[in-house]
């Protein structure tokens, strides 16, 4: 046993002791087989490191180079002939030939399109989606509406739909008094209802105030006289005459769909249009979910 081996063994022992010390120090539970195997692996690596080091340092000390020199010398430095093993060389050339065949014949470079794969994936998904949600029941719609809401609407309206203390429309309520006054003062022509534009200033001063208080209060009690102007389009119950004008009493499928399609700009701020971002089923689901709030 020469001094090199003794040094390597000592090195391995130090590494093993260090491993054991770390395991003890971190109070690792060795009854768990994963931990035990990991520690044994670390010890194994220490032994292999010592062995390999010994082998190669020994080789560097004792081995002499052998072989046939090529003819040339560069600045007095020669080079051994070191041919590739023929099996290796032939398989390498074989792979090059196979690669050319694969590129040109087997799977031509123009045979695959990322967009094509995307289109197929989307088409398959849409078919599956339509089949699965052809006739959704109320519970399915509510669940779908909630998940759509959390992804698409919650960033502005908040996860509880309360509008994040006035940063967006409070969807648990139809309209606040300020919002109604704003619409009365400015009119509105944003949602594309058949009834068309609502002109500004249909009611003024105390009349507008009374209407706003009545509508914001959920239309309880007797309607103020000025509400008669609203009835012409929005209906006596405020529900919008079956989709002719926006429902001001609450959320319904038509209202939700019109807002999603057209976006909206009101007293609080602007909401972008969600045209093409949601399917009709998702719109219906959102409306169903909003009505449960």
């Amino acid at each position, binding site marked *: 046993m020469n001094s090199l081996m003794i040094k390597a063994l000592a090195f391995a022992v130090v590494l093993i002791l260090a491993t054991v010390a770390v395991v003890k120090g971190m109070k690792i539970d060795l009854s768990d087989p994963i931990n035990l195997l990991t520690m044994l692996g670390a010890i194994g690596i220490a032994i292999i490191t010592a062995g390999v080091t010994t082998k190669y340092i020994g080789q560097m000390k004792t081995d002499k180079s052998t072989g046939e020199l*090529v003819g040339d010398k560069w600045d007095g430095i020669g080079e051994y002939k070191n041919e590739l093993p023929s099996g290796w060389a032939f398989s390498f050339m074989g792979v090059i030939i196979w690669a050319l065949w694969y590129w040109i014949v087997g799977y031509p470079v123009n045979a695959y399109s990322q967009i094509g794969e995307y289109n197929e994936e989307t088409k398959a998904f849409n078919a599956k989606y339509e089949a699965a949600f052809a006739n959704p029941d109320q519970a399915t719609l509510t669940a779908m509406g909630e998940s759509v809401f959390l992804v698409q609407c919650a960033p502005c309206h908040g996860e509880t739909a309360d509008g994040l203390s006035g940063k967006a429309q409070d969807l648990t309520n139809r309209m606040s008094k300020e919002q109604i006054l704003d619409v009365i003062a400015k009119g509105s022509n944003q949602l594309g209802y058949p009834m068309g534009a609502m002109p500004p200033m249909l009611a003024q001063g105390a009349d507008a105030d009374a209407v706003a208080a009545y509508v914001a209060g959920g239309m309880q009690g007797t309607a103020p006289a000025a509400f008669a102007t609203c009835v012409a389009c929005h209906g006596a119950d405020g529900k919008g005459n079956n989709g002719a004008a926006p429902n001001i009493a609450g959320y319904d499928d038509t209202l939700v769909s019109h807002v999603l399609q057209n976006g909206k700009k009101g007293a609080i*701020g602007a909401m972008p249009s969600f045209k093409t971002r949601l399917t009709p089923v998702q719109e219906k689901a959102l409306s169903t979910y909003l009505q449960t709030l």
Partner: protein
Amino acid sequence: MFHWLEKNPFFFAVGVFLVIVFAGLIEILPNFAEASRPIAGLKPYTVLELAGKEVYKKDNCIACHSQLIRPFKSETDRYGQYSLSGEYAYDRPFLWGSKRTGPDLHRVGNYRTTDWHENHMWEPQSVVPQSIMPAYKHHFTNMADIDTAYAEAVTVKKLFATPYDAPNGTPLGTHEEAKAAALEEAKAITANMKNQDVKDAVANGQIPEIVALIAYMNRLK
């Protein structure tokens, strides 16, 4: 096998040249493809949007946000239509990014609005409670660098023939005209904002960084 090349440096150099030419062509040729041309209707950035883009670069938004929607169903569901090469024709440099700690922003203008950005940049957690994005309140007090943005626009106009002042392009004009146009654009944005300091600054002819950044965000569609 290549022993002969080692003894003939001239032919060795020719070989190296050929390899580099091939690699260069692979890199350069796709830029001339039809798909890399500006898509129909694409306009260069206005000066205010460019100033916003500078803010985006300066505050290193690219470290957490990408601007490239890949053609996967999961991505197009969340962010919209996948990105096309020609959409970045006037982005110098493009800001694709490769890290998504936050969401992709390539079409953020489609689904976020000025007032949302205002709330979000002031205090991200006030609109997205789980957000780990830091607040960028200094955007509300720092002024955007409109002069540099104008210089950038003039440079790309002269150097790369970016269609400023072209029919159906983006008007640029002289330095004074461009500054006035940027201020007009900023006023249109602050009309939808609530922060009184920002409104006052714009009314006094200054443009805070937040306004430029929102102009840029709204442009990303």
